[in-house]
């Protein structure tokens, strides 16, 4: 018996030693990068004392989702959209303040520089004369025309032809000038046009021979690009690799290579970051932030246009009658300590949004200041509005109707926690909040499928929402977007129809001139605030974990990699 036990123990120890020994090799081995590269040595030549080749600067990023396509027209995935900027510049890009700056163009078209016609239908872009593809072919207006043609071709199964289907024609008076004519004035042009262009010299022959781009190799293997990096390879489910574009027309990238690893599991991503197996992680959950900070990673929070909102059902047929009174709505806003929620439940990382355009500061101008947490003032407002607790049951009532409000959101843990906090805080001012956590799929089911959110079944609904970021549009608040049996696809699940709001939304959608549009959106911003149609709980930002050895990292809320050429690794 003892002998058997000894054998078993020995085996366990041996296995541990073996693991350790193998690990040792991993930990101490010098990187074998470029081991097979370099000229063959010549035996007759005298050895020349040379410095060992510098280690390749390879930055490893983790994406929690794998992109489905690398072509700008064939995907709407955020992870694909954000990756384009490594190998395909946009005509203009968005900086860390979500403000546009010219990239392929000399300046952003405006009425002042003659880039926007008086009737607002024509946009003229002037391209830089030094831009070129990675195979040294110049980027010209023809590439823009080809991109538009491919987006609207019925032969291509593109994910979305928006916004190109709003264009009547794209012409090129010369190789550096692109003239875009819209059917009608098209306000979202700045936020939506030219997110990556197609290399006409590579893809036009494919389209002409196959009649479609659908099977083109370039869609998943875009070896020709115009960004600081070029695509190297992509192994499905595993990784994608981009290497420095040696023919880049701008300032060369500082990194040699970017290795994107697809890790779908959040806990695995956290472990990989803690172990140093990656330099940057995406979509970090709040729960993992302390552990990552302890491991020495920097946590970067970037507003992306989305925030968690409470949508109050200001609708005579659908909502609680009390919500028709703006003072009651204001009282609700003042009864909830949103700063404390963010501080205690979300580690103080995001802000409490005061504006629907929180991430687009020029539309939140002058910046709004949130209704403060002031339960006493809230009680006064409710008293003034006639909602008083006359029977002493702790719930206010008026004309025989209790101030008992339903609130629904999804079963996401943080939302349920916040529901519980709000329930208590509203009870303190005499409002009874009945909470309904609903499964995501059921909650967001369509109107035709009797989805509770689409049907407007609750007095207060809650989810993460925002404008068509980086465009400020909010067409889904229009009255004609309210769903009904005749209009089941309607997207106005808030069931608010406000004539003033309606006319302002329609006006801004036609304002091509950014300055004029800014004024209109600012009016809507103020209207939302004054009428308290929505109450912001917390910004729903993108959270990144970045290794301290990764330098010069800046993020935009629009995309991750607008300054990727500047990113570097510490020696």
């Amino acid at each position, binding site marked *: *018996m003892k002998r058997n036990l000894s054998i078993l123990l020995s085996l366990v120890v041996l296995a541990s030693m073996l693991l350790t*020994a193998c690990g040792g090799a991993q930990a101490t081995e010098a*990187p074998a990068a470029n081991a097979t590269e370099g000229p063959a040595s010549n035996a007759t030549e005298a050895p020349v004392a040379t410095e060992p080749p510098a280690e390749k600067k390879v930055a490893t990023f983790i994406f929690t989702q794998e992109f489905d396509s690398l072509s700008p027209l064939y995907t709407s995935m955020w992870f694909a959209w954000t990756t384009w900027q490594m190998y395909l510049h946009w005509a203009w890009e968005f900086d860390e303040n979500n403000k546009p700056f010219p990239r392929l163009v000399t300046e952003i078209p405006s009425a002042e520089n003659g880039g926007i016609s008086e009737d607002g239908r024509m946009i003229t872009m002037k391209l830089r004369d030094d831009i070129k593809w990675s195979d040294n072919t110049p980027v010209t207006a023809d590439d823009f025309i080809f991109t538009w043609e491919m987006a609207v071709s019925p032969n291509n199964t593109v994910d*979305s032809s*928006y916004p190109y289907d709003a264009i009547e024609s794209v012409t090129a008076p010369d190789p550096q000038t692109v003239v875009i004519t819209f059917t009608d004035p098209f306000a979202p042009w700045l936020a939506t046009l030219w997110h990556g262009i197609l290399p006409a010299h590579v893809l036009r022959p494919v389209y002409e021979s196959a009649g479609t781009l659908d099977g083109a190799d370039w869609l998943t293997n875009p070896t020709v690009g115009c960004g600081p990096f070029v695509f190297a390879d992509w192994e499905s*489910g595993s990784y994608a690799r981009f290497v420095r574009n040696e023919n880049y027309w701008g300032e060369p990238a500082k990194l040699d290579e970017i290795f994107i*690893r697809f890790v779908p599991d959040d806990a695995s991503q956290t*472990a990989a970051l803690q172990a140093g197996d990656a330099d940057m992680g995406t979509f970090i959950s709040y729960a993992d932030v302390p552990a990552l900070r302890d491991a020495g990673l920097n946590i970067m929070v970037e507003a992306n246009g989305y925030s968690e909102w409470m949508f109050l059902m200001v609708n005579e047929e659908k909502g609680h009658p009390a919500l028709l009174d703006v003072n009651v709505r204001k009282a609700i806003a003042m009864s909830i300590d949103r700063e404390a929620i963010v501080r205690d439940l979300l580690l103080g990382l995001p802000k409490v949004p005061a504006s629907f355009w929180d991430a687009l500061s020029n539309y939140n101008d002058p910046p709004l200041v949130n209704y403060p947490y002031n339960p006493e003032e809230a009680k006064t407002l409710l008293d003034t509005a006639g909602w008083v607790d006359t029977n002493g049951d702790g719930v206010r009532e008026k004309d025989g109707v209790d101030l008992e409000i339903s609130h629904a959101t999804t079963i996401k843990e943080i939302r349920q926690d916040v529901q519980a906090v709000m329930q208590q805080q509203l009870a303190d001012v005499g409002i009874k909040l009945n909470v309904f956590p609903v499964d995501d799929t059921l909650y967001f089911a369509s109107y035709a499928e009797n989805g509770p959110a689409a049907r407007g079944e609750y007095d207060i609904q809650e989810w993460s929402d925002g404008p068509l970021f980086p465009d400020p549009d909010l067409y889904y608040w229009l009255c004609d977007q309210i769903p009904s049996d005749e209009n089941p696809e309607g997207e106005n699940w808030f069931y608010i129809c406000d004539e003033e709001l309606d006319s302002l939304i329609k006006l801004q959608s036609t304002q091509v001139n950014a300055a004029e549009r800014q004024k209109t959106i600012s009016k809507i911003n103020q209207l939302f605030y004054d009428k308290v149609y929505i109450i912001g709980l917390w910004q729903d930002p993108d959270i990144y974990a970045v290794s301290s050895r990764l330098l010069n990292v800046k993020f935009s809320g629009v995309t991750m990699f607008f300054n990727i050429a500047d990113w570097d690794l510490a020696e």
Partner: protein
Amino acid sequence: MGRYIVMRFLQGIPLLLFISVILFTLMMNVGDPVATMGGRRAVRQTEYQRLRRQLGLDKPVYMQYLYWLVGNDWTQVDRDGDGIAETAGTRRGVLRGDFGVSLLNGKPVLEVIGERLPNTLMLMVASEVIIILGALLVGIYSALRQYSVIDNLLTGIMFIGYSMPIFFVALFSMYIFAVLFKRWGLPYLPTVGMFDPQVGKTTAQILWHMVLPVLSISLISFAAYSRYIRSTMLEVMGQDYIRTARAKGLPRREVVFIHALKNASLPIVTVVGLDLPLLLGGAVVTERIFAWPGMGRLFLDHVDRADMPVVMGILLLIAVAVILFQIITDIVYAWLDPRIRYDK
């Protein structure tokens, strides 16, 4: 025997057709692939209708099945949405080896599966070999030394392993051997992926990155197999012919490995035969946690977005493998037990 095998293969054809009808009908109800194509925003109605038409999803289910099975190159389709079918179809159908293209990335289904299958086989075959060899050793040892201290110890360990969810084992081992070992300054294992990008995709790197996923899969399945072997071995060891073999003075090793194990193998072969085709499906949880690019993740990712052609391809592959391995199992039965005859 040959006639039997041919018959079994022929029986498999209608069975596969039946399975494909069931699976296709189920897939039609999994979700709407076009609904997820707009990112965080809903797909505009005009785009929605266009995409459904271009992807052939606007056709009735029976037509979609027919096109999937026999292709649509014998008919014309309406690509531009003017209501007139003007473009010749290009699909040849599963019966002619065309499994279609992924709705997500436009790649041929066989190419999509072909990229992942070797990775899954690498992981699962390694795990299965370790499981079977280890389980044989432990199972036989426990059976021969029933109720000994080591038998009880192994039984306890096996039950602990069996009762632990694989995600826990996987994450726990990752945290111990990768995160904590590194923190403690010890040599450590990699967390995710197949190789270190600084080193490159070498055989050594792949083997090194396989350690934790294989360990996790093995630990879970090891328990069930070894308990199964132990019980069948115990049953066989009590049979008359084993006692006779012992009485004849045969060496213990011969009694155990030739007479007992061969007869105890029949039910084990059944279990292994049922398990092997499922290896093709990969280990969904393990592959997800270790970011291993295998079939399990492929299945999950594409089911999630209702990518019918790819999911059907994977399911059909597994169905074929199940039928194939059942035939192989029957053949192995006859080899292990001469009393089994299939020919009349």
